[in-house]
Structures are given as C-alpha cells and as structure tokens.
C-alpha cells in the first residue's frame, strides 16, 4: 500500500487541478463588485434569469460566450448607474426580444403557452367525469328467465359428459 502512494500523488494533484479549473468560470463573476452586497445578489439573480442567445441552454451568468460577457458588462454598467431591474430587462427585451427571458411574459401570443396545460387538464377532467357518469347510468344487464334456464341446461349437459 505504501508503495502505491507516490503513484497516487500525481493523480490526486491532477484531480485537484481539474476541480480548480472547473470553478474558473464562476470566478469571472467576481470582477463584478458592488458597494452594496444586496446589489451583488440582485445582479447575480438577474443574469441567472437572462438567456444567452448564442448558447441557448445557458444563462448569461453561466455562459462563456463572448457576447454573454459583453451583455454581463452591459447589465453591470446599467446597475452601477442605478438602473432598476425592470429597466435592465426592458433594455434587453427591446433589443433581443422576449427570447432573452427564460420565463416568457404573459401576453396574447403566449396565452396558449401559459394557460394551455390548465385547459387540457380541465378538458381531461370533464371527459373523465362524463365517462364515469355514463357508466353509472347504464342499467346492469341481467339474464332473462329463458336465458337462465338455458344456462342451467348447458351446465347440466357439460356435467353429464364428464
């Protein structure tokens, strides 16, 4: 075991190195400092909710793309100037469209997107209720006397054969 330790050392160092590198992009956010710590939180929340247009599955906070860096700088600059969160969002939406928002706004063209699931849920519930009601309304079909007699006859015949 002790003989193996020297071999493990470089591997451990490499792993430590890789983990440090992995956090490198989070470190780039450190350059955005505000005097008020609550503003730092607000800044990070905001860029976490804005979408990078180049790599569309990433937020502005997480993206390494050069355009994302430019937009982070722009959001930072606007917040330093004392612009409110809504002003920053409006600025970006006016230029890039609703696409920069991870959460689409509620407006006529997105009604179906927002309310569609509830409509389908209600429709499904309605159809289910109707099906249950209909099942209940149907009378239990019982055998008539003649059919019952015939059933007895058939059973008796089968027993005789055995």
């Amino acid at each position: 075991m002790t003989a193996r330790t020297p071999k493990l050392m470089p591997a451990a160092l490499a792993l430590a190195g890789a983990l440090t590198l992995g956090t490198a992009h989070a470190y780039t956010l450190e350059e955005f400092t505000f005097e008020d710590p609550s503003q730092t939180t607000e800044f990070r929340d905001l860029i976490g909710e804005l979408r990078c247009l180049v790599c569309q599955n990433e937020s502005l906070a997480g993206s390494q793309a050069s355009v994302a860096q430019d937009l982070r700088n722009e959001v930072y600059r606007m917040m330093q100037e004392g612009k409110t969160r809504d002003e920053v969002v409006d600025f970006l939406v006016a230029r890039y469209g609703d696409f920069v928002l991870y959460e689409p706004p509620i407006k006529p063209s997105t009604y179906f997107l927002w309310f569609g699931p509830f409509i389908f849920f209600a429709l499904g519930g309605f159809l289910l209720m109707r099906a249950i009601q209909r099942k209940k309304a149907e009378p239990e079909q019982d055998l008539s006397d003649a059919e019952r007699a015939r059933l007895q006859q058939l059973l008796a015949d089968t027993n005789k054969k055995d």
Partner: protein
Amino acid sequence: MPLKDGRFLKKIIGHMNKSATRALIPLGIFLALAALLFYGLQLDPRKIPSPLVDKPAPDFTLESLKDPSQTLTKDVLLGKVSLVNVWASWCPSCRQEHGELMRIARRNPSIQVVGFNWKDTRPEALQMLTQFGDPYAVSIYDPNNHSGIDWGVYGAPETFIVDAEGIIRHKHVGPIDAQVWEQEIRPIVEQYQAKKS
C-alpha cells in the same frame, strides 16, 4: 399502395360500430401532435426574430473601418435602401457569404451595402477585405460591441435591410447565399426601393 391502404382503412372503419370509431380519436390526436412536433423539428432555434423590425435603426457613433479619423452615424443609412452586414474576420460563415456579397454589390449599384465590422481588430478586418475584395460602400467599425448590442446582434453574420428612411425592414441571421438573396432579401429590397421613388 397508399390507395390500397386507404381503401383498406375505409373498409375497416365501415365495419366498425360507433364506439370503435370513437376509439380512433386518440390515434388521430396523436398523429396531429406528431405532425406538429415534427414541423417544430424543422425550425432553426438559432433564428430568433428581431424586435427591431419596422423600428428606426438604432443610433450609433462609430469610427470608419478604413479611416479612424472619420466618424460614422446613422445618417449614412439615409436616402438609400441599405444592406447592413454584420461581419468579422474570425467568422467562417462571413467568409462563406463574402463572394455572394461581392456579387450583390457589383450587380446592384442602387443598393448600399454597409459593412458592420463587429468584435474584430482593424488590421485583420482590413486584411480580409484586401485579400477577398471589399463589397462595402461604407464600413463601420465596432470592435467592442458598443452598438452591436443596440442592434440586437448576437452572432455573425447577420444582415439587416434598412429602408431609405432609416427603418429596419428585415433581419437575416446566418450567411447569405444566392437562394437567400433571390428568395428572401431581394423581394424586400425591391419593395422598399419601389416605395421610395
């Protein structure tokens, strides 16, 4: 074969009673949904519609690429229908569309082709124009993405059609080739050129 299948289906449906036909409704819904999603797959998620279409082009004050002492503003876009082409020397698709831009500029002297050099360096940009030709009547230089953000640029190449009054009429994302020019850009350009006269 499809005819045969069609007849076969009709025959089956004909033999079914009402409740069995009703059982086919979920299949119909499934097929409709599948068709809708399949259509969605054909769309390119990189093509994001610009909110700037039909709005005045954003103001800018930038250096000319060829002459640092010259300042260019939105005024260069007035009076003529312009194609504002966002490009950079580091962008392979820009080189791909370069030949088509050269052709467009040569054959259509009535259109002002404007180069919007974006996030690039002046020597590299100028070198590309020397090497492959310069299709641009005016070249705007925006190395730090100052105005690119105002124009909603998120990649290169992108091309805006700006009418003679300085209003953005169309945005094309991605390289221009002969087909894009003929089918997408040219009709809009001609529509606004006709309007002007």
